């Protein structure tokens, strides 16, 4: 099981990245097509933070703006309103030199393969390495290795005319990743591929994310590859509707599943709870809640130990899996105790509204909770 050995602190650090760990930071992004009378807004106040090394899958119906967002990230369009930092560069009003540099650090994989008919698979891929100036033999062997890995070992020196659609697409994938970009932007990279080669492509993506901290944004409708996503962003009508850190939620669900009070919830309900839960860390000795203050959060201890103090007297000690803070929320009362961390503590936190929503949605959970409170008294 993950839970026992899980280093929650590391996960929290991972899930709440510092500014410098972000490879993409979008805030208040609007975008318009056309001019004057025909000007039409296609993106509405989008915000998105993506950590380095994250694999993001963007979904949404066609026309929802996901491709527009992808091209904005890739400097293929100019940012009009709002801010967008990519690999540490602000794109609003970016200079041509900055754009050129960013493009070299980015790997594009287009839906259409866009290979030169006049060049062999090798030469098409080589166009990407020549630009960043990687040296001869190393580059040559890497191109060959990559193409071989993508199942094109026998066709390295074939021209696109003699390749199937899927093979061409794989050459395009190789071209997009060969120069070790820090950011890969892919539009339906697996659409033309069979299950096996599609899997190989996403496996390569995963390795690049893990080993080279490469950030990968994939626009896709291919549910076969959803499992590689760290984050799934879905867009509707020019807006990011949901932005789910999949892996984080999976881990939280797994932890919550072990906890007594969530036993009664369906997997779907737990997932919803996990989705809404924030993670927060407290240092040893820190006060988590204070007696007499109005409470607006519900806590589940993920790791560490806390003391419950009433009127300055330690009455209890809680550990992993225990929860607190519910009484004040249910009874609309001030906190009836102070909770202090006696070690470094990681907590899962639900806001008052989210907590209420969970109670409303599940009678059994409410009962479970009441029983637990009853048992505690």
């Amino acid at each position: 099981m993950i839970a026992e050995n899980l280093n929650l602190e590391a996960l929290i650090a991972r899930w709440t990245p510092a500014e410098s760990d972000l490879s993409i930071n979008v805030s208040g992004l609007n975008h318009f097509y056309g001019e004057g009378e025909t000007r039409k807004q296609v993106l509405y106040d989008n915000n998105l933070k993506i950590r380095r090394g994250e694999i993001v899958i963007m979904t949404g119906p066609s026309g929802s703006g996901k491709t527009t967002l992808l091209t904005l990230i890739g400097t293929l369009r100019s940012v009009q309103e709002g801010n967008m930092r990519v690999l540490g560069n602000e794109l609003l009003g970016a200079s041509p030199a900055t754009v050129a540099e960013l493009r070299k650090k980015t790997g594009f994989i287009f839906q259409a393969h866009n290979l030169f008919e006049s060049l062999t698979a090798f030469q098409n891929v080589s166009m990407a390495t020549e630009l960043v100036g990687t040296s001869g033999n190393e580059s040559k062997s890497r191109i060959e290795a990559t193409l071989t890995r993508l199942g094109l070992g026998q066709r390295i020196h074939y021209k696109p005319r003699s390749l199937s659609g899927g093979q061409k697409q794989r050459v395009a994938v190789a071209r997009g990743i060969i120069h070790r970009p820090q950011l890969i932007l892919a539009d339906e990279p697996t659409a033309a591929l069979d299950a096996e080669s599609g899997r190989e492509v996403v496996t390569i993506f995963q390795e690049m994310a893990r080993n080279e901290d490469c950030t990968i944004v994939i626009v896709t409708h291919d549910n076969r590859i959803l499992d590689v996503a760290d984050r799934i962003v879905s867009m509707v009508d020019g807006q990011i509707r949901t932005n789910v850190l999949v892996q984080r939620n999976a881990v939280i669900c797994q932890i919550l599943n072990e906890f007594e009070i969530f036993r009664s919830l369906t997997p779907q309900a737990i997932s919803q709870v996990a989705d809404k839960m924030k993670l927060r860390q407290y240092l040893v000795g820190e006060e988590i809640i204070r007696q007499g203050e109005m409470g607006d959060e519900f806590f589940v201890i993920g790791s560490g130990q806390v003391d419950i103090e009433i009127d300055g007297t330690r009455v209890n000690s809680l550990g992993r899996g225990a929860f607190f803070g519910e009484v004040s929320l249910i009874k609309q009362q001030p906190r009836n105790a102070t909770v202090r961390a006696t070690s470094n503590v990681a907590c899962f936190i639900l806001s008052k509204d989210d907590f209420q929503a969970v109670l409303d949605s599940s009678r059994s959970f409410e009962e479970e909770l009441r029983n637990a409170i009853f048992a505690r008294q």
Partner: protein
Amino acid sequence: MKRTPLAWKNLTHDKRRLVLATAGIAFAVMLMFQQRGFRHALFDSTVEVVQLIDCDLIVFNTNRFTISNEVRFRRDLLDIAASHSSVEATIPLYMENLAARLRVAEGRARPIRVLMWDLNQDLFDDSSGEINKRKADLNKPGTALMDELSREAYGFDLGTQARFPQFGELSRKQVEVIGRFRLGRDFAHDGTLIMSLENLERYFAYRALDPRSVVDYGIIRLRPEADPQMAVTELRQILGNQVQVMAKQEFVDREINFWSRSTPIGVIFNIGMALGFVVGVIICYQILANDIAEHMSEFATLKAMGYSNRYFIGVVIRQAVYLSLFGFIPGLLLSCGLFWFNSSVTGLLMRLSWDRVALIFGLTLVMCVVSGLLALRKLIQTDPASLF
């Protein structure tokens, strides 16, 4: 690693299109050569007679604006020139053009150029030797040599199998053509006769009371040690304003200048060449623009990768240079053939010198590069985002 030669690969990928492109450019090259060739033929042919004369300086009437313009000057001026210390020899050259009419039997009388001088003096570089050989025969009155490139319409048989003498009528008096020499015709002259000076009074007595007292050209040879520039300056001072003294090359340049600037002919051929150039630009533009349009998404992908506009300009310029080379070589070969054909039909001199070939190649290069850059505009302006 060696850079992928994208320009070459794209150009040579579709062989059929490459052949068409080459043919199109070769055609434009040929057009330009042809127009340029005619223009040069005009100039070369016109000054050929001067080029053949072995001399350093030429004296002529200041008002004589072109070779065929019959404005003459007094012979004694040439005698004065002969006394200058730098001058080795002077040859008075007599030329009749408008009034000299030649016909055979009952045929029409046509104007012909007649050159006359003292045959004891070698006027021409005489590479053919024909004039020297026939000197004795020519001294017989009423005899002449005829340019073998003269128009057939005169009615003389001047081919290699021709038999002489042949008889005709020059200015209503009988003339005996005893042989051929080679000069070539031009836009003002359909043919040329060479006669000895003794015939001047016989045929062209109307020139003056003493027909020999007015000459068309004074041919001057300088002593080997003389400074030509100084001689020209001094002779101009001595001879006064009535006559011009010019070095041979200066005279040739003046004549060419007259035809190219003061007559519409030079302009016409320039327009013809410009048209060839425009046709070339259009053909070349079509080819390059098509190539770029067909590969637009691939080029845009390169742009998205970070390839700069400079790279694309380089690719297109390289393609343009390759195309101009491909098209120029067959164009040049074709032109050589056509020049030979034209020359044999018209009797005009059609010459291909290195500087002329270089000029047309330069124009071909400019033509291809200009059209390449025109074709590139779309790519430069294209937003790679249009790809997704």
